[in-house]
């Protein structure tokens, strides 16, 4: 009686381990295949002189344009070939204009991310209600909603943006719609999980005193779901702030536009300034949202 049980248990354990080893081997094979095929196609090169390029780029990045304009040479002289000064440019004035533009672009990015996230949340909520398994929506509707969410999640914001720029034209509207449509997928999934982890004990507790449906909703469902909704909203909002900095690349405006400009003109100092703003934005929003999420937990 004991021996077969022990045997099957050992087999189970061994089998589980065998499975893990098998998966690890598969994973290593995949990596080898990726590396090997790239090497055979000669695509694994780092260019002609990566070290020198790296140092040059790093040096340019180390001098963000606004620092250079104030603490480097403040005036740029345009000279003709024989050395006469044609005109002198006050770099601080130019930089001040640029920084003002940067501020406006940042505001645009924040607006795109905020409105896009709200749109995504509003679109995602009904789909989440349809897909949440414990609410048992009609099967075909649930499948349809799940399909919509999966499609939305698998298409990148940038792709949505490119398509939408063709439809609604250049500008923040395309960005807002793109962010909204893509993050609808993430919202739907997170909201559905929040609904699925509903605290049934709480609902029964409120129901057991003879509370009506509205009272059950506001006293048991709402307190259990709201913190998770807010937490997911903050999380995706924060993600969208990062995402919308890229959207400018396709003409949706905002910080991405300045990034494209700086890279296509090889103005690494300016790119450095823009990236500093992006980092500051993301880090401060992250700190803020983490505070709020901790307080809600």
């Amino acid at each position, binding site marked *: 009686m004991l021996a077969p049980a022990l045997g099957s248990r050992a087999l189970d354990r061994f089998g589980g381990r065998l499975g893990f080893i098998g998966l690890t081997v598969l994973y290593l094979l995949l990596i080898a295949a990726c590396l090997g095929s790239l090497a055979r196609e000669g695509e694994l090169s780092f260019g002609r002189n990566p070290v020198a390029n790296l140092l040059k780029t790093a040096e340019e990045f180390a001098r963000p344009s606004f620092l250079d304009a104030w603490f480097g040479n403040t005036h740029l002289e345009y000279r003709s070939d024989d050395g006469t000064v044609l005109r002198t440019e006050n770099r601080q004035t130019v930089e001040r204009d640029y920084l003002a533009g940067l501020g406006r672009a940042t505001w645009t990015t924040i607006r795109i991310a905020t409105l896009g996230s709200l749109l995504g949340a509003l679109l995602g909520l009904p789909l989440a209600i349809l897909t949440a398994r414990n609410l048992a929506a009609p099967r075909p509707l649930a499948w349809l909603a799940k399909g919509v969410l999966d499609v939305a999640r698998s298409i990148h914001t940038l792709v949505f943006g490119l398509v939408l720029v063709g439809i609604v034209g250049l500008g923040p509207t395309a960005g807002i719609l793109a962010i909204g449509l893509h993050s609808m997928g993430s919202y739907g999934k997170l909201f559905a999980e929040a609904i699925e982890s509903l*605290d049934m*004990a*709480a609902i*029964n*507790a*409120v*129901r*057991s*005193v*003879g*509370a*009506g449906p*509205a*009272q059950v909703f*506001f*006293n*048991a469902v709402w*307190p*259990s779901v709201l*913190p998770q909704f807010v937490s997911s909203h903050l999380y995706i909002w924060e993600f969208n702030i990062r995402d919308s900095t890229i959207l400018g690349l396709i003409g949706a405006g905002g910080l991405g536009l300045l990034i494209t400009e700086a890279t296509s003109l090889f103005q690494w100092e300016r790119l450095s300034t823009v990236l500093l703003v992006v980092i500051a934005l993301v880090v401060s929003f992250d700190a803020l949202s983490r505070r709020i999420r901790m307080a809600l937990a």
Partner: protein
Amino acid sequence: MNPADCITLESVRCTAAGRTLLDIERLTVRHGERVAIIGHNGAGKSTLLRLLSGFLTPAHGQAYVLGHDLSRPLPAVELRALRVELGQVLQGLHLVARLSALDNVLIGSLGRVTGWRSWIRCHAAPELARAGSALEAVGLLPCAATRADRLSGGERQKVAIARLLMQEPKLILADEPTAALDPSATAEVCRLLRQAAAEATLITVIHTPSLLPLLAERVIGLKEGKIAFDLPIAAVDDQKLADLYRPETGNEFEPRQPAPRQGLIHVQEAFS
């Protein structure tokens, strides 16, 4: 059969998946009685409580609880009306985990208070004062702002009892209210439960024989879904309990062993 009694059951049978869970010829509980229901696991105790609280409709027979006819599924409005007068203390966390102890006590008033105030948990001052004194009665006023999931098991049951005080039900159903509590918390919860039920009928499902005198004047033993005995507490002796808890199949199982020693025996067996 007198529907004016608190509980009247007549030839009630509850079935699930072809199995008879409960088969009661006749049971009457008058207002103000204190009844304990005992029996081994699967004897139908929880089924009986679910029947009495309107969660389960009998397949057959007549069932009246507080004047409501439960032999057919109640319409939602009448079911709510029944639950307003029916207080329940269940084992485990029977509270809203994310709300404070005080808010959980205030839930007891939801049957009486309706409208927008009960939606946004903006309760009127008299209700707040009552909830505060209910918490004080169970000795938890210092924890009023603590969230229910941060309270200990005993404190949670005390909050549930404070909710009963707030609800003022006519009938209280307690399903193993002291499960997983330590002895001192058990005694405290039983004492408070008896206080809360001073004006009400109290029906308790309980496993610990030593708690019977504390919570009941009348003991109903259930076995295989049937009433094995229905006696005043004084007439219940060790032999009756042993008979009740002895399974039909009859093996080495010793039901009257005190729980800790049983645990010890298991440990010893595991190491021998």
